[in-house]
């Protein structure tokens, strides 16, 4: 006597069997915390500075070339203000703090943009920080200079400067 196919067999063929997702879940539970621990959430930047070098004195034949040299721009970071000195210009640009301990970076940015317009061939800023000025102020100032197309920042480390603050 022949029997027809069982009801269970016909049901298993018609209904797709659900895959077992538990191993995949376990894998995810391990991988996701692992990736979260090594994921970079903060992108670090590097800012390059250059050190002053001893420049040799030029002879008489170089005087014509010296006239074409860009003017030296010095930015002094003082405890209560910024001061910008442009070589050959007597007036010092002074940017006082907006309030106690709060530097006016916006004005510094505006002045740097103006200086770049008037000194297009100059790409270096001589930076002279006061020893008490915070590192944050120093780095913000460097950043403002670099963002205004002054890519070279010369960090003046000597205590005796040709620059005389007010």
């Amino acid at each position, binding site marked *: 006597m022949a029997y027809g196919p069982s009801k269970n067999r016909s049901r298993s063929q018609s209904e797709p069997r659900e895959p077992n997702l538990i191993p995949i879940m376990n894998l995810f539970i391990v991988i996701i915390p692992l990736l979260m621990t090594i994921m970079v959430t903060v992108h670090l*930047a*590097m*800012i390059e500075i250059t050190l002053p070098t001893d420049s040799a004195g030029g002879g008489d034949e170089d005087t014509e070339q010296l006239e074409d040299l860009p003017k030296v721009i010095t930015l002094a970071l003082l405890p209560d203000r910024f001061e910008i000195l442009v070589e050959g210009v007597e007036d010092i640009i002074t940017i006082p703090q907006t309030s106690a301990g709060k530097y006016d*970076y916006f004005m510094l940015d505006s002045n740097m943009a103006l200086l770049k317009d008037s000194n297009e061939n100059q790409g270096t800023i001589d930076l002279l*920080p006061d*020893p008490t000025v915070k*590192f*944050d102020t120093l780095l913000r100032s460097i950043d403002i200079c670099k963002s205004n197309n002054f890519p070279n920042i010369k960090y003046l480390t000597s205590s005796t400067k040709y620059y005389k603050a007010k």
Partner: protein
Amino acid sequence: MNTLSVKVNRSSGGGFQHRKRGNKTKDLNITSLIDILTILLVFMIKNISMDSTRKNAPEGMLLPTTITTNELIESGKAVYLKIYPDRILYGTESMRVGSLQDFLNKPEIRNSLLRLLQMESRAIISGNSKPCLLIQADKELPCLYITEFIKFSAQASFANIYFSAIHTDNKSEVLGL
């Protein structure tokens, strides 16, 4: 207390079939959860950086924010110097050098750090690379120490000096607006 329901099974000769209430459990549908986790996984794999171990922000240090960024010079090799308000750490292994006051006042601390930097510099130069100093300093640190370290590194033939900062695309953040 579980109650038993009794149902007459007509197909099997009228016998009684006992069924326990609450025995049937509904399967949890985790397909949507798997979908979310897959998206999360793809996102994380995309954002992961294998370089992260060397460029992580030092723990417990507040770094300044910048919009501009420079790359390390070609064939440059960086030596890390972490300057906290209370201590100085040297190298990727974060070897403790001493406090900032020790650095300023104790010649033996300065000499040992200078020797370390000079040794490192010579080793980098002998490997046909250029020595670079990467200074990671706390944003509240006075420039006095930064200037001292820059002078110091110049003595140890480190001509390329970099400051570490957190990169942002928002200029207003840098301008303090």
